[in-house]
Structures are given as C-alpha cells and as structure tokens.
C-alpha cells in the first residue's frame, strides 16, 4: 500500500494569493494512498524541507508530491531532501501550481480547482513511480576546441595550463582568426599582431596542445565525458612534418594572380602560400584551385625548389579519430556579404571598402605597407566617410536585426588613427546611436570627437555615388540639424554587420546543440550559464555565441575553459537515470527509434530468444546506452510496437496523469 505525503507551498503570495492552498491540501488529503497533506509558506526553505523530511520518517512515506513552482526550480531541492531522509529521490513528484496555475490565473475558485487537478495528476503518477539509481560514466581527460581564433587559442591555453590535453581544430591553414587581420585594438591602440602572435606561438609550443590546422570536424558521436570526434585533415599538398616554412616555394611559384584572402582580396598571393609571416603552423599550403601542377600536371616549380622535399602533390584528405571529454565551440564570425547594399556602391566602386578591408589597408603587413591609399588610384584620401550599422539593427530583411556591438568602437578607432596619422584628412562618421559600454570605451569615443575632431553626424547615409572625377558623392541626412548633406568623399568605409561563421550550423547539428534564428549558439541560460550550451559537455567561447569584442571574447574563452576544466577534473560523471529502455520481447527491430534518437544512444543487436515449443529464434532488438541517452523520449513515441519506455516518465505514468486530469 502506498503512503504518499502531499506538501502544498504558498510561495509567499506567489501561489497563495490566487490559489486557496488550504483547500488544495484538504482536497488532496482525501486522495487514495495519501496519508498526510500539509501546506506551508515556503516549502523550499530549510524548515519547509524539514517538514518533508520529518513526514517521510514519521509516516514511512513511499512517495512525495510537492505542489509548488516549476520542477526546473526546485525538483532537485526536494529530491535531495527526500534522499537525506532515506527515500529514493525519484519517488518525488512536483505539481507545478505556480508557473502553470497561480501566475496565469486571476480567479481564485478556478485556480484552486486547477491546482487540485494538477496535484491529483502528480499523485496518480507517483503511485507508479519506481526507485531509480543513477549510473556513473567515465570522463576522457582531453578537450577539443573547434576554431583557432583568439577565443579558441585562449581556451586551449587555459585548459592546457590546468594540465589537460587539448586539440585545436582550425579550418584555415593557420590559427589566429580575425584578430590576426586586425591592425590596432581599442581602447588601448596596441598592435593586434603584437599581442596575438605570442599567444599563437605559445599554443604551438605547449606540449599539451595539438593544432590541427586546415582541418574540419566531420563527425561527432558520443556524449558528455566521452565524445568520439572525426577530424578531417584537408589535403594541403605539403608535408607538415617536413616543411620548414622557409617560404622559397611561395616566392618561386609562377601563379601570381591569386586573390589574397588574408588581405581581403586587396592584393595577390601565389598558388602555394603561407597566409602571413607569423602564421602558426608556419607551413605552406597549395591552393588546388590555382596550382597548375594539380590542375593540369604542368609546373612542379615548388617541388623543385623545396630542399626539404615537403611538396606532395598526391596528398589526400586524411581522417583522424579522437576521444574527448569536453568540446568547446569557438567558430567565430565573419562580416556579412554586402551584395544586397547597392546603395553604398560597394560592389562596383573600389574606394568603398568594409572596415575589415580598411584594417588591412592601414596595416604595415597589408597591401600598401601601412600607408593609407585609395585602392582605385593609390592616392591619399582627404575626405573619408564612415557609415555605421550597415546590415546591423536592420528591420528590412536585408541585414541582421541585432546590433553587431563592435562597430562603434572600431570606427572610433579608425577615425582616431586616421586623424592622428593624416591630420589633413576630414573624417565623418554617420551613426544611428553611438554605443560604447565597456571599460574606458566611452572615454575613447569622446577622445575621437573632442580631441581628434572627428565629425560625428547622427543620421543614415542614403546613397553613395561614384563620380566621373574619381570622387564619391555621399548623400546623407543630418537628423539633429534636420538637413540633407552631400559630402564629396575620397573613400567610404562601411561598418558591415557580423554574422556567425557558416560552418557553425552544420557543426551545431553534429553537436546537437541549439542555435538562435541568427545561427548564434544558444547558451544554457542567458544569465546564469552563459558559456555552456544546453547540451552537456559542449561549451561556447567567443563570437559564435553572439557579437563580442576582444576583451569580452577572451574573458568568455577563459570562462569556457574553466567550465571544461571543471568537467575534465572529474573521474566520472553521474548520469540521469530517467533514460529510455527497450522491452526486448516487444521490440520489432524496425529502427524507428534509432532514426529519431538525436544522441545516437540506440544500437541494435541480434539476440537469441526462447520461443514456444522449445525453439529459439534470433531477433534484432534495440538496446539503449543509458550513458548516452538524455531521456528526451522521442523514441518512445516513434516506437510502433510500444517497446520503448522512459524511466520516470513511463507510458503508463503519463496515461495515469491524463486519466487523473480527465476524471
């Protein structure tokens, strides 16, 4: 015979103001199997929990129903309380009479009636609850960092510092990411390369860190503590172990007209190349789209000049499989394509550039060796117009609805640097709002306006039209003065919105992590779990989670590392016992469950069964790996024969709840 205790919480006035809690406790006290029914002001408080604990001991309870807030809030609290009083924690059920009742109703009579019904459903379920025991699963002491930008590098360095092996997978030939392309950093104006490249070298020299450059994640299996990842090492046609990075091949290659992506296509590289001088690993890569030898078998110059014998035209993609306990996603961002913004003449006027292109134009290692010249005629620009929010805060469907966050600050930086270096240049900045939250950020912007006399004009640019004399007519509105402006500019710089890297979405599918509508990874809780994804063991670092500047990215990278280290420190992790299982006598082996399982937890095996008349039969049946199963229940509804069931949420328990509600 069941002995069930019911505990109705007032939650101060949160519940008690709309639900007659005494009436609920009274009504539920008459339900079959209920031996004690009480109400209390704050059931989650120390004394409230003691009420539950004492009742379990005193009345020898076999089940507990707490009518309170959402199980997300305090299910764990009451499970722990029950466990400390000697009751299996999975014999506790929560009836949510706050979020699903008192908060959404105004009429006391109907809210009370509903609370009683919800309580009844929980009682009906707890009648069928069975004690469950958690299992343990071991943790592989190695982490994977996907993306080798500043976020990935920082995360990897921190994890390695704690003594764990880390692998970085970077899709480009070198680590460094976007920060390597940036000239100076705000608000201190120190050189990006000077602070980034030592970290890149540190990562490559750390014996705990393995860098898989020019590689991609091609498959992810497993679960927290025990992921199996396949890494595709793309053919670079150069043996990484032999190449010394001398660069002779990159000088001798006769294929000179390959757009240099590191310099945003503003100059050319060879078909065999090292992206930039401080690349890590400093290994050449052959671009098969341009290499004459790979395209039609005629050339072979690089192979001839390479004294190390590192060139290998026959190299193919290789696949490496490795086990990891934790995965950190650091896939970063890209500026959006501006082909939908013809009003800014970007696609046909070379002197209209994006901010990242301007970074390269101003960089000492850039196409002009650090002298700011117009791309069209290599002359010095005297009037430069910056346009903010190109594709950001955009409601027309062409761009992004969100604020890209970094543009206000880097534009202030660009404006300041130009005025500092070329005081004869007039700089205009058109903005919707100037947003500068951050340490020393607003001071920085004020300096651009007050000290460097940059013309900040509130208003958007309507049209950019190149003129026959090489100048550019910028038509804009000054919203504060209420007038239309025409500026005769030499260059226009567009602060293009940033978006997550295109590799993020297929990766999210492989990792079974969530993304928002903009393809940014979703954190487990926007305030309280900002660097964890909702999928256990997957952590988020940098701009893949949302637009971020460098200080924020590095802070988040270290936070993600701390979370990953916290996981890797454990020898084993406790698994959720509310997992699926298959009744082998009913299983048809049809694979419906396997197909819908998002975690790959279901496998099939041929098993021998005893059949009538002393015969045996081999049947294909499903088995669930309880360490992989996350208890989502998709298999239980896909199973045509009803063989799949979920511990703690069995079909019979759910039917009992429905019956209790419909009674």
């Amino acid at each position, binding site marked *: 015979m069941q002995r069930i205790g019911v505990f109705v919480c007032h939650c101060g006035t949160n519940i008690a103001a709309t639900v007659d809690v005494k009436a609920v406790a009274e009504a539920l006290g008459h339900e079959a199997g209920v031996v004690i029914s009480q109400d209390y002001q704050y059931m989650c408080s120390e004394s409230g929990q003691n009420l539950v604990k004492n009742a379990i001991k005193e009345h020898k309870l076999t089940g507990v129903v707490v009518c309170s807030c959402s199980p997300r809030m305090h299910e764990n609290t009451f499970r722990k309380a029950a466990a400390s009083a000697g009751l299996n924690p999975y014999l506790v059920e929560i009836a949510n009479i706050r979020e699903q009742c008192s908060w959404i109703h105004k009429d006391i009579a109907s809210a009370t009636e509903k609370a009683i019904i919800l309580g009844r459903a929980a009682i009906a379920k707890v009648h069928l609850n069975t004690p469950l025991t958690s299992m343990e699963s071991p943790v592989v002491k190695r982490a994977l960092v996907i993306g080798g930008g500043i976020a990935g590098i920082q995360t990897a360095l921190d994890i390695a510092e704690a003594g764990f092996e880390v692998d970085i997978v970077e899709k480009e030939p070198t680590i460094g990411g976007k920060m390597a392309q940036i000239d100076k950093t705000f608000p201190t104006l120190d050189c990006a390369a000077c602070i980034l490249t030592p970290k890149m070298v540190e990562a490559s020299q750390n014996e705990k860190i393995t860098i898989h450059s020019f590689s991609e994640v091609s498959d992810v299996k497993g679960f927290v503590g025990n992921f199996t990842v396949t890494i595709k090492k793309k053919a670079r046609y150069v043996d990484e172990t032999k190449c010394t990075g001398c660069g002779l091949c990159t000088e001798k290659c006769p294929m000179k007209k390959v757009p240099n992506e590191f310099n945003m296509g503003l100059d050319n590289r060879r078909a065999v190349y090292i992206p930039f001088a401080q690349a890590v690993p400093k290994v050449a890569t052959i671009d098969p789209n341009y290499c004459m030898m790979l395209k039609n078998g005629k050339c072979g110059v690089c192979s001839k000049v390479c004294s190390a014998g590192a060139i290998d035209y026959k190299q193919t993609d290789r696949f490496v499989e490795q086990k990891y306990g934790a995965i950190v996603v650091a896939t970063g961002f890209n500026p959006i394509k501006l082909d939908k913004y013809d009003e800014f003449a970007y696609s046909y006027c070379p002197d209209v550039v994006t901010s990242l292109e301007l970074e390269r134009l101003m960089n000492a290692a850039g196409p002009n060796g650090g002298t700011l010249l117009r791309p069209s005629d290599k002359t010095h620009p005297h009037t430069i117009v910056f346009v903010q929010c190109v594709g950001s805060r955009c409601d027309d469907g062409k761009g992004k609805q969100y604020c890209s966050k970094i543009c206000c600050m880097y534009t202030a930086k660009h404006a300041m640097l130009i005025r500092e270096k070329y005081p004869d240049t007039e700089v205009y900045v058109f903005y919707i709002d100037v947003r500068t939250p951050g340490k020393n950020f607003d001071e920085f912007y004020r300096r651009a306006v007050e000290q460097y006399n940059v013309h900040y004009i509130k208003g958007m640019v309507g049209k950019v039209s190149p003129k026959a004399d090489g100048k550019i007519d910028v038509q804009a509105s000054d919203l504060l003065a209420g007038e239309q402006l025409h500026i005769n500019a030499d260059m226009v710089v567009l602060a293009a919105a940033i978006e997550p890297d295109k590799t993020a979405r297929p990766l999210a599918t492989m990792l079974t992590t969530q993304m928002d509508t903009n393809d940014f990874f979703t954190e487990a809780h926007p305030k309280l779990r900002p660097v964890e994804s909702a999928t256990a063991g997957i952590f988020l670092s940098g701009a893949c989670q949302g637009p971020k500047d460098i200080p924020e990215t590095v802070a988040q990278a270290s936070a993600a590392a701390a979370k990953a280290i916290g996981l890797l420190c454990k020898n084993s992790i406790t698994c959720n016992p509310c997992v699926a299982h298959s009744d082998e*006598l*009913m*299983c*048809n*082996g*049809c*694979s*419906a469950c396997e*197909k*819908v399982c998002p975690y790959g937890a279901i496998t*099939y095996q041929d098993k021998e069964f005893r059949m009538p008349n002393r015969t045996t*039969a*081999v*049947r*294909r049946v499903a088995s669930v790996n309880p360490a992989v199963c996350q208890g989502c229940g998709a298999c239980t509804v*896909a199973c*045509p*024969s*009803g063989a799949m069931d979920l511990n703690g949420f069995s079909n*019979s328990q759910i*039917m009992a709840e429905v019956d209790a509600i419909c009674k």
Partner: protein
Amino acid sequence: MQEAMIKRAVQLLADGTVNRVMGWKRGEFVYDITPAVFTTAEELEKDFVCDDFTQANLSKYLVKESRKEGKILAFLKPCDTYSFNQLVKEHRIIRENVYVIGIPGGPKLDIEKIKAKGITGILSVENENYTLKIETIYGTETMPFSEAVSGKCSGCKSKKHVAYDELIGDDGEVLDSNRFDMVAKLENMTSQERFDFWRGELSKCIRCNACRNVCPACTCENCVFDNPKSGIDQKAAADSFEEKMFHIIRAFHVAGRCTDCGECSRVCPQNIPLHLLNRKFIKDINELYGEYQAGADTTSRAPLNNYNADDCEPSVVHERGVE
C-alpha cells in the same frame, strides 16, 4: 504465365538457389485462392496457381519465412514489392534469404462483385477478351471484366516493381492514379457528415482482426491490441463508438509505413473501406511534407521519422483541421 512461373520455380528448386517457393494455391472454390509454401516440383505442378483471383500480398508471410533455414522464392506483384521493401527497411524481412521474382500485377477480380450480379454456384471463370465467361451449376453467365475488377486494383498506384531479383514479363511504370479522389470527397464533407459516414462504416465492424492480420505494416512481435500491458486489450467499450477506435489507432500505427496495398479493405468481411483511413494519412503526408511513397526504396527516411528545418509549422497542420 502460370506455366512460366512453375517452370522457373522448379528450376530454382532443382539448382538449389532456393529450398521453398512462396506462391498461391486454390481452395475449395476456383476463386478461393490462398498463399502457400511449396517445397517440391510435384507440389508446384499439382497446386501452384496464379490467375485473375491471386490477389493476396505475399510480403507479410516473408517476415517469418525469411527467418527459416535456407532461401525462399517469392513471386511478387508490383504492389507487393512496395510492402516487401518497407519490411526490408524495417528489418522485418531478411533480404538475403528471399529470391524475388517480379510478376505482372492486376487488374485482379473480386468474386464479391461477380456474386453481386446474382451469379452463384460458380464453377469456373474465364477471361475472354475482357468478357468474363462464368460456368455455374446453373449454366453459363457472362459479364464485362471491368465490372468485376477488385477495388484494390481500380486505384492502382504503380505497375513498377521496386524490388526483384528477376522479372517474368515486363516491368511497368508508376501510375498517375486517382486513388485520393474519395479522400478528397470525405475532406470536403462537414465534420458531422464525415462522422456519420465513418460511424456508419465502422459500426459494421465485427472485430474479426482480419485487417490487422493481413496488413504488411502490422508485424509487431506483440500487438498493442493483444498486450495486457497496453491497457486497451480486451477493454470493455464505454460507448458504441469506442470499439471503432481500433481502426483509428491502427491507422495511426501504420501512418507513414502503409504502402497502400489495399489488403485491409480486400479481406474485410464487412466491406468497410478501411484503406481510406490510410490514404488520408498518405495524402496528408504528401501535402505537408512532399510526395512520399512508403516502400519505394529501402533507405530514405520517412517524413514522420525525420525532421527538416523546412518542415511545415504545427500551426499549418492545425489550420487544416479547422473548418
């Protein structure tokens, strides 16, 4: 045709390719054809039959037969190959243990349609240029072939074999059938009219379970209607309609897996048009998730077991149910 099939079956038995043959044999009456397994040339020559009445889909029998010792030869009509594929896909039939010979399909004859003309005491039925010459104990009768075509064949979806090891006769094409016309008509009814239609039809049900037992999608090791744990077996009906929920539950159970072979309606002794329930699901799946034919292949993912980012929103599904 029958001779060619027997000849080939005897060959395959003799050369050891197979040790059994799945086909049909005649019962008490000429039109009374049942599936049968043959193991010798003598049995084949004596009993094997394939004529205008051999409608039965042999695929479901292969669930058990393909698990026995040795390989079995099965003669499959185009529609049967869809069921066969679906069962292979669900790992119910072990493909390696079956040698499939594709044979041309219907149209096949429905004896009930002949009897409905008042023709009884039938001894034999001959098809002469699409006129049926029917010998009865009372004399000879004739009727047009087209008036006796089985309901399952009149909405034929395909003359193409989607699985076979060899063919006897030519392969056909997927047909542009009118099989959803009646479903569309039901959809256009008011909910009350539709309810009345189904209550009228389903009230005839005697729960003989023939539809379930013949259905190639119903191969569960332990059927939900026979399982005491399911809570619905042997359940006393609370009202006159609850018993008919059997058919609704069954239609849901086979949704996305039903190949529309039409066996359920064919075997129903009460002539309930059960296939319409399944066709409604097929039509909905086609309209909501794009054309999908269960059993057309053994690898594709069924729409109801799959998720694509461009799947229609639940609200679209909801709106379709609102009058």
